[in-house]
């Protein structure tokens, strides 16, 4: 939703390819260590001020202290300490959105203006008549924050909302119920993250055995109602193109299990989000699968644990940027990503998996249900809502 008010220089399309937005083009120099970004002209902030290189450079410097950002006439120049071939994709991150600060308030260039904001509860937006890309079709947008899926569903059924989020496990049911559902490709990662690196080779083997014990296909089909895809990789296959080489679990035969679990391992504690019933069922299934393999897992909903069941929603559809985000969220060493090829990306992802600190389980879809009179709804792969393209038709009696 931040993108409705604040914009980035670059946007990623559905395939994760950077596309010009506030920037019109970019040019790499010095082996991807120096980038020149050319700015769009005619863009204004809400208060009427023009978008210029100095404002953009200030925003980028604030968000990236290790970058050296310089303002040129109609462009900004970014210098980094090491080659960053994915820098345009990084510029698409909302953290790199452009804002002008006036009297302690941030002002954006987006299609909507904030008319009211009650933190964590409610956000009122109104159309930015001066939007450089054309005024939105809708005059205003009311957004209720902090509502559970169940509450959103109830509001939708009562006709009090036009658009709601849908949990992955409810996508199929909503579609079967005749609702209009707009869903993304599998994007969020559900994974088991170990709190500590393995302390011995036996523990590494045991973690391998655990990774191969999960019946993620059944979990996806039954628990998530096919709201995701089983995976053994960190990045989805549609993004990286090689995820199939990291197959999901349930391929552990008895002989290999015996070899991997030659020594008894201390039981692990798995913590999950107690507020999420689906998370609980998945955790219990993991416990069952692990028990079948010969590993003991105890479930916990609070306190310290050996394992955490996490769902990570990256904010970028760029593979390199996403891998870096995932590594950061999982507490793994940041990938170097100095190369620009798929082989470099694969090597970095494999290195992360080889730490035995993360076991990918599923790639989850994100989805919204929209009312029949809502047209032109378009969510980006990373989950951004482009409400400026939406228009409403009169409701049928």
């Amino acid at each position, binding site marked *: 939703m931040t993108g409705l008010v604040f914009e980035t220089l670059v946007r990623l399309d559905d395939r994760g390819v950077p596309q010009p937005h506030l920037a019109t083009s970019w040019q790499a120099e010095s082996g991807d260590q120096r980038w020149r970004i050319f700015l769009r002209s005619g863009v204004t902030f809400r208060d009427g001020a023009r978008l210029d290189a100095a404002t953009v450079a200030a925003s980028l410097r604030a968000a990236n202290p290790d970058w050296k950002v310089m303002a040129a006439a109609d462009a900004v120049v970014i210098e980094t300490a090491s080659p960053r071939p994915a820098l345009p994709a990084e510029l698409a991150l909302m953290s790199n959105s452009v804002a002008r600060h006036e009297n302690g308030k941030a002002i954006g260039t987006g299609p909507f203006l904030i008319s009211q904001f009650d933190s964590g509860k409610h956000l009122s937006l109104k159309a930015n008549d001066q939007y450089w890309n054309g005024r939105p079709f809708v005059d205003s947008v009311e957004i209720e924050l902090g509502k559970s899926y169940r509450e959103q569903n109830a509001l939708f059924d009562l006709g009090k909302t036009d658009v709601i989020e849908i949990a992955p496990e409810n996508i199929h049911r909503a579609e079967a119920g005749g609702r209009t559902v707009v869903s993304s490709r599998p994007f969020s990662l559900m994974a088991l993250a170990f709190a500590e690196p393995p302390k011995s080779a036996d523990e590494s083997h045991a973690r391998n055995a655990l990774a191969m014990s999960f019946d993620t296909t059944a979990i996806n*089909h*039954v628990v998530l*109602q*096919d709201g995701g895809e089983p995976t053994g990789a960190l990045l989805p296959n549609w993004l990286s193109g090689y995820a199939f080489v990291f197959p999901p679990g349930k391929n552990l035969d008895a002989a290999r299990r015996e070899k991997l679990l030659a020594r008894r391992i201390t039981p692990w504690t798995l913590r999950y989000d107690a507020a999420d019933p689906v998370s609980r*069922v*998945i*955790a*219990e299934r993991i*416990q*069952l699968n692990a028990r079948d393999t010969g590993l003991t897992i105890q479930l916990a909903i609070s306190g310290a644990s050996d394992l955490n069941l996490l769902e990570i929603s990256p904010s970028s559809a760029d593979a390199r940027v996403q891998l870096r985000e995932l590594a950061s969220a999982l507490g793994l060493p940041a990938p170097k990503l100095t190369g620009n090829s798929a082989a470099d990306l694969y090597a970095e992802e494999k290195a992360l998996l080889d730490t035995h600190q993360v076991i990918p389980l599923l790639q989850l879809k994100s989805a919204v249900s929209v009312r029949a009179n809502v047209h032109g709804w378009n969510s980006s792969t990373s989950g951004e809502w482009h409400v400026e393209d939406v228009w409403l038709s009169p409701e049928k009696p």
Partner: protein
Amino acid sequence: MSFRRRLLLMFALTVVISVAAVAVIVSYMARRAFDRANDERSAALVAQFRREFNRRGEDVARRVQTIAADPETSRMALAASKPTPDYSAYLDDAQVMAEAQRLDFLEIADDRGTIISSAQWPAKFGYKEPLANAKAPTVPFLKEEETPSGPELGLFAVRNLPSAEHGLFIIGGIRLDRTFLSTLDLPAGMRVLLYENLDSGATSFAPQHLISSSEPSGNELGLAALIQRVQHDAKDANAVVSSSPAADDETVNAIPLKGENDQLLGILLVGSSRRPYNELRGQIRSAALLAAGSGLAVAILLSSWLAARVTRPVEKLAQAAHEVAAGNWNAHVEVSSEDEIGQLADTFNRMTAELLQQQDRLVQAERVAAWRDLARRLGHELKNPLFPLQLTVENLIRSRELGQQEFDETFRESSTTLLAEISHLKTIVSRFSDFARMPQPQFQRVELRELLENVVKVYQAQLSKTNITCVVEATGSVAGDPDLLHLAFSNLVLNAIEAMLQGGRLGVRASADQSTARVEVSDTGKGITHEESARLFTPYYTSKKEGTGLGLAVVQSIVSDHGGRISVRSELGKGTTFIIELPSNTEKLPSAWSART
């Protein structure tokens, strides 16, 4: 111990033993009655549990049946009948149905045993449920059910929902927990506990598996041994449990609860507080103590009176017997009853009377015998000198027919002989006269050494002549008559000298303490026989050719007059020792003598 005290003690013991016996019997009977009542109450509670178990089981079966009849279940059955069934749509159904039917456990499985939906463990979809088969029990049963939080004990029922090709199995149950136990109507002082024997084949006690219908009593740990016994034997058992001094004793009956495969899944523990019994036992003990104390006091009083009543005639009899023993044969007991004691007293009186008569007869007989003996002795003694007298006179008469000169000579010799024999007769008469006139002792302090040395000194010449060695060892003093004692010891020394005419050793030894003086006179003569020893002090008895037999009689008379006694110890061939024991007799001394001592 006196007869009265014995009687008193006997009465007291009888009362105490009787009260104790009554207390023990009453206590035993009370315990048996309590145990019987407790058994009955426990049996009633177990029966109630079984009724409740069956009722709840039927209830579970009804609810499971309701689920089986639910249209959603039919849709599930329809889905199961497809060649490649997809159960993903039914993940939450079991939870919804279990909630609607208030079941704690619900699993729906197809006829291949695959779990379609599980309320207690939703993640278990796709796993196998062993009960989902045609051999599933048709009646409610106990089962250990796995849940994510661990195994739990439940009351289950299974219903099969058959369809054309494939069927469904609905396995529902309720948790056997405190809520279940709290539905039981417990009599006061009773409680019921359930031990969930969840680790199959477990033979150890895990406190967390013990569920109580009430607040913990503190006896929970004390149940461990009983539970382990049932785990081991799988049979009913009971025990009295007390884990802490603060907690009440409790009789606990343990009943094993078994599952379908006869495995021990739970143990029902019916506890009955022993507080009422303990209170009753305490009351019985208090009453017994009170009764024993009161009875003892009454027994002492009554037995004192009774013992006095019973023992007074006996004591009189004893007193009379003592008097008789002391020489008073005139003792008489008053006969105050006609019972055994009265008969005894009468017999005693007759006995004493008879003794008196016999004594009189004996005295008369002895007196006659003494006179006869005296006459014999006198005759013998007098006969000896009379025979020479007769011969001398006859010789003198015959000498008258001879010449004057011969007559004169005969007359002179005869006169001498006559005078000598007459003198002998006078001596004999004098001795008898002296014995008859033995005076009473005049007591004064006598130094034994001085006395005995004076005695020996008199016979010094004879001792030297007969080659007798004499030893005098004497210390101490005694109250007595020195002349009579001198006479007594002289007789003994003379006897000793006469016993050692061929020489020997004479020993005169004396010692004295506060109460007694002991004097021994011993010789190394030929000794005397036992029979002679017995008759030695009889008057006029003598073992010598010449003697009146009055010497030792005189000695005994003197010793007796001094309150002492004399004895003799003799061994043939080795010698004889006379032992005289004299009391100190200080009380018989004149006051002046006493003051001086």
